[in-house]
């Protein structure tokens, strides 16, 4: 049994212009100790997927369908006190903007006291995330962005969780701090033997640390594959497009291919395959029916009607081939 089993998760928001499915039939598993990357652009539903697992879907969002099993226990519909307990003890969370996630009127010590449930040893916790114990009595505004993010990581690991969910944990900091923070997170995760769901729009970052990657677009997972295989031979036209759009190191400075077309809106999702309006391989059948996420090779899953055609056209275009 996997640590986390998400099945057909559908999270809907009521808006003035009708219901919006931010997550639409999302299924994935996370094994113990595994790092799963969820990559996607704004509006892809990656953050809502993470929030749904944590029971933190903001109103007016509701989980309309599906199941979320953590360590065998069904969480969908679990009472708030059960979620609170889980979030404290077994699921640690790191958010993008620690400046907002931390309470401005509480010191670091007070945050750590609440997170750990212990009255002392807070300095040791801070040292575990590479911060000086001197910072315990500071308020969040007295810390740098990188320090605040480390405090968030300390809170997340305070009770040795089995699963850490990190949503764009390093997006608000600059390049060097990003790598240092990520290295810290990966080291701690390894020490704890915890699984990690790493949500990011940055495929480069994900590729460095994730065992498997789920690629999301417009609320759906379009590909779910081991990282190395996805990069070497993308199993979905959108995965291939994301790889091509990434600004390369030591490129020749010529035009970037990009994804093509404009981002679709959840308010007006394409019929059939959600990527069909932008896909170079799409034909009429793509707009007719939604392709299911099916196994295409051991460990690989893809939601595409024309995988054969796509595979033919892109053979050898992946990274490192």
């Amino acid at each position, binding site marked *: 049994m996997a640590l986390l089993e998400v099945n057909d998760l559908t999270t809907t928001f009521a808006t003035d212009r009708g219901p919006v499915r931010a997550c639409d039939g999302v299924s994935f598993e996370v094994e113990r100790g595994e790092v799963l990357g969820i990559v996607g652009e704004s509006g892809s539903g990656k953050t809502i997927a993470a929030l749904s697992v944590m029971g933190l879907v903001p109103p007016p969002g509701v989980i309309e369908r599906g199941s979320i099993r953590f360590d065998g226990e069904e969480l969908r519909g679990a009472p708030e006190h059960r979620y609170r307990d889980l979030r404290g003890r077994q699921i640690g969370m790191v958010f993008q903007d620690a400046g907002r996630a931390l309470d401005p009127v509480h010191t670091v010590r007070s945050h750590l006291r609440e997170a750990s449930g212990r009255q002392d040893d807070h300095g040791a916790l801070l040292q575990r995330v590479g911060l000086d114990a001197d910072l315990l009595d500071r308020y969040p505004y007295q810390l740098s962005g990188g320090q605040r993010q480390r405090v968030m990581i300390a809170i997340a690991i305070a009770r040795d969780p089995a699963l850490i969910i990190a949503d764009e944990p390093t997006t608000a900091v600059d390049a060097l701090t990003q790598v240092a923070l990520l290295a810290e997170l990966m080291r701690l995760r390894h020490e704890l033997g915890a699984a990690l769901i790493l949500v990011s729009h940055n495929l480069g970052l994900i590729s460095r640390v994730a065992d498997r990657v789920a690629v999301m677009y417009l609320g759906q997972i379009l590909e779910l594959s081991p990282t190395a295989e996805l*990069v070497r031979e993308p199993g979905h036209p959108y995965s291939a497009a994301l790889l091509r759009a990434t*600004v390369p190191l030591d490129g020749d400075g010529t035009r*970037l291919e990009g994804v093509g077309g404009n981002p679709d809106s959840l308010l007006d999702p394409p019929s059939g395959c959600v990527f069909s309006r932008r896909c170079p391989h799409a034909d009429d059948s793509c707009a007719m029916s939604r392709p299911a996420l099916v196994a295409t090779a051991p460990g690989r899953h893809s939601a595409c009607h024309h995988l054969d055609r796509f595979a033919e056209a892109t053979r050898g275009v992946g990274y490192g081939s």
Partner: protein
Amino acid sequence: MGAELLRLTAAGRDFASGLFWSRQRTVALEALDLELRPRETVGLLGQSGSGKTTALRIAGFLLRPTRGEVSVGGRDPWRAGGRERRRLRRDVQYVFQDGSDAFDPRQAAAGIVEEPLRNFGVPATDRRERVAEGFAAVGLTADLRDRHPHQLSGGQRQRLGIARALVLEPGTLLLDEPVSALDVSLAAQVLNLLRDLQEQRGLGYLLVSHELPVVQHLADRVLVLYAGLVVEEGGAKILSAPAHPYTQALRAAALTVDPGAGLPPIAGVAPPAQRGCAFAPSCPAVHDRCREARPALARQPDGRRVRCFLFSDQIDNDADRLSEELP
């Protein structure tokens, strides 16, 4: 090479901080030399606190340099009269990191692009046409004219910011992290758009970014800044094989798609030193001398200039004024 668009000569800026009786001087930018010509992109690469944003604001004469000079088309905007300064201002336009912070949220897209035209007294009859041209130039469709900033996607807002910067037909665009708030697919489109506009209009770009691949992609020349000083400078190709340990760290930190490569060991997150080489506390190649004295920018055989004792054998002929004047 066309005529010079923009030049900074040993331009630097200090900020005062603290209370009156304990006022301290913080050096945001020590001294920067750069020049920009039409169809050229100069990239300023560095982290927050490197001085790159200060440099950009000096170049846009939003900030008066404490020392050194700025000139636009050969004229110093700080010595020019009001009318001439306005004319110079027209020629150097800003593109901000994220349009949502830079725009008036109550104004519709067309009004945002029109505003600079109105400020510069362009007659109403011409304005409508110029706004339409601006929209077309950046690939925004006319049906977005009445949308407000929050109703636009991140990519559309960034295009709108570029359209607004372009309507006055400037020679220079100052690009402040133009794609760092954007998703990959949109970033690619905006980078392509910037490339096309430069080719069509002969624009000069002064680009600020903390992302090495972005600077490498757009820039012809690069200045790498750390703690207010240039530590390495040269053609963009220097970023493929950086000499200075700081530039090397920035390159290593560029997380390219590379499964299994893991994360690079990173030096470079300690606060800069006040004495000697500022990068010494983070530098993997540090030795005693680095903590005592500050290295000068020294020209290397391949033409680049590097501020590091590892590369100071070839002493620059136009010796670094700074290392002589400052402690």
